[in-house]
């Protein structure tokens, strides 16, 4: 099996103006939502383990504009950006995070286990590596159904060292499943630096071991990310099988809320934050004449209002009633 190489330069797919703005909208939504999340935890009004996605906004935003509602995603505890980009509604999302009955999962899943099938957000897992085997299954179903749906399997750089990664890529390649493996490489797994956990300098190099195309891309560049995702998604839709995309990025606020980042240097953190992809992309859109300051500001204000509304909705909602404790264990009620 030959490894396909990716289109580059003028041959690479380019998002049109509307799509460029839509990518920004999603990035900004993720950024503002993350800020609101950290703020509310700091304020003590909500208690939860929170895995900030700040710094990783580009990846799901540039991928998801290539997806339809019935395409699927599987993601991880650090996955609220993926959920938002895919269209999970803010009110239900915030209510879930707040543990309320109006949440996507009636408050029973929580921030690590968001599921919202209507927007294709099927799985959020807390077990490293486990998004991939299940993504294969969703892709298998789509293939059997002869739809042109694709599934995105999101995971981190650290997850590329666990067995499930290997088994999933091998099976997906063998069965030519319409799945795209998106490794969001933020260079750390909890407190472990990339090179102390991973024996190869680029995770994308592992694709060759599965006869699968693999590519490392600047995951903070919306144009590159869009082009690579577009190509991989089209290939999957056309029945040509899976792709491994390693999207390079950085997480600004450590592994989990409260993390003091002792395991990284001040310099690398401030360098990464200085290259914050959200304002950079915003400036570029304006400089390139794709959008005006006013358009973007209006869009941002609108997002802020939506988030504020969602938080209010979530806080005002009721917690799940006690009978929810033993409901949904099985399809029928009252078993055991």
């Amino acid at each position, binding site marked *: 099996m030959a490894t396909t190489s990716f289109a580059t330069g003028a041959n690479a797919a380019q998002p049109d103006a509307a799509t460029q703005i839509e990518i920004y909208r999603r990035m900004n939504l993720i950024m503002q939502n993350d800020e609101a999340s950290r703020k509310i935890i700091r304020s003590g009004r909500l208690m939860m383990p929170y895995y900030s996605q700040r710094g990783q906004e580009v990846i799901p935003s540039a991928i998801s504009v290539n997806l339809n509602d019935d395409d699927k995603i599987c993601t991880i505890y650090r996955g609220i950006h993926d959920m938002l980009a895919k269209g999970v509604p803010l009110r239900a999302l915030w209510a879930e995070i707040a543990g309320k009955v109006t949440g996507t999962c009636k408050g029973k*899943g929580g921030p690590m286990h968001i599921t919202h099938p209507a927007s294709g957000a099927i799985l959020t897992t807390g077990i490293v590596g*486990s998004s991939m*085997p299940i993504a294969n*299954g969703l892709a*298998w179903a789509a293939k*059997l159904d002869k739809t042109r749906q694709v599934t995105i399997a999101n995971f981190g750089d650290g997850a590329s060292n666990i067995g*499930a990664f290997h088994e*999933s890529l091998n099976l997906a390649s063998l069965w030519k499943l319409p799945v795209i493996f998106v490794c969001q490489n933020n260079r750390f797994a909890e407190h472990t630096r990339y090179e102390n956990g991973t024996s190869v300098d680029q995770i994308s190099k592992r694709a060759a071991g599965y006869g699968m195309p693999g590519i490392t891309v600047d995951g903070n560049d919306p144009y590159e990310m869009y082009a690579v995702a577009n190509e991989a998604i089209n290939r999957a839709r056309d029945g040509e099988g899976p792709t491994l995309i390693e999207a390079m990025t950085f997480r600004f606020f450590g592994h989990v809320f409260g993390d003091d980042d002792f395991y990284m240097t001040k310099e690398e953190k401030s360098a990464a934050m200085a290259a914050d992809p959200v304002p950079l992309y915003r400036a570029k859109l304006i400089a390139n004449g794709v959008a005006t300051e006013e358009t973007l500001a209006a869009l941002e204000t609108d997002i802020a209002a939506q988030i504020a509304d969602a938080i209010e909705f979530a806080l005002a909602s009721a917690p799940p009633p006690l009978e929810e404790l033993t409901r949904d264990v099985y399809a029928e009620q009252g078993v055991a």
Partner: protein
Amino acid sequence: MSAIETKKITIIQAINEAISEAMAADPKVIVLGEDVADREGGGVVGVTRGLSTKYGDERVRSTPITEQAIMGAAIGAAIGGYKVVAEIMLMNFTTVAMDMIVNHAAKLRFMSGGQTGVPIVIRMMTGAGISSGGQHSDFLEAWFAHTPGLKVVLPSNPEDAKGLMLSAIADPDPVIFVECTRAYFTPYETPVNVAPIPLGKAKVTQQGTDVTIISYSEIFLRATAAAAELAKDGISVELIDLRTISPWDRETVIASVKKTGRAVIAHEAVKQFGVGAEIAATLQDELFGQLKAPIKRLGAPFTSVPFSGVLEQAFIVSVADIVAAAKSTLA
């Protein structure tokens, strides 16, 4: 009433028929596992033989040796609208797929607030007595029975195997379906048409008054033989084949032991922290003051399955063990 048409089939054939009937009735039923397609022989003992030929290679897929990926593919396809029969060749190999089974298949319905159900059947064989040694013979059903979200089924004969498999495939939740290798190959007269047998319902195969013997899987056949032995000594045994371990049929078991006042529970798994413990603990609570003797549990000694034949035979609960335990409740 017209006579029921029967034929002699084994558990292997019975499960094969059940899967085949389910596949014929519903195009959404699919099968995967190592060597399950006919190109690879239709399963190592032939349980899925003929199915890929009949229903196509897309619906019956052999996989690499990759149990996590097998379970993940099953879970994802189930959420995607399929009813998946996944084979994990031997029960001990569930140990490389426990995350998928326990953290995902079992929990996804609950964690999603009821949105993503996982209608899969996880088939596996196991059992000592065929010289397979320590890593191929364990009965681990107690693990799965301790896991909310899973159902656990262990048939002892072809008719039950077929009827329970039909229900397991139709079930909206994940079902662990355990097949005992020792019971695979013996043909039994079995109705040609078997209706789905509800999960969670035990079968009282023999009414009795002195002592209730509760068992499942191949050990139930030994319990049946023990009941025949005991009858020779004038002991009247009520015999219960649990068939489903989770949820288990509390009503039937409690009613029986309430009547007899005595009970023996026998299974192949090691006794400590085994299924018998849950049943004994429940009975002593529900029937406090009404029991004529302590509930007796039988299971394997607390050790790995040994290779050497003499030790391996001593490992498995025997007819004599069951007879002795029943008699001890009457002493």
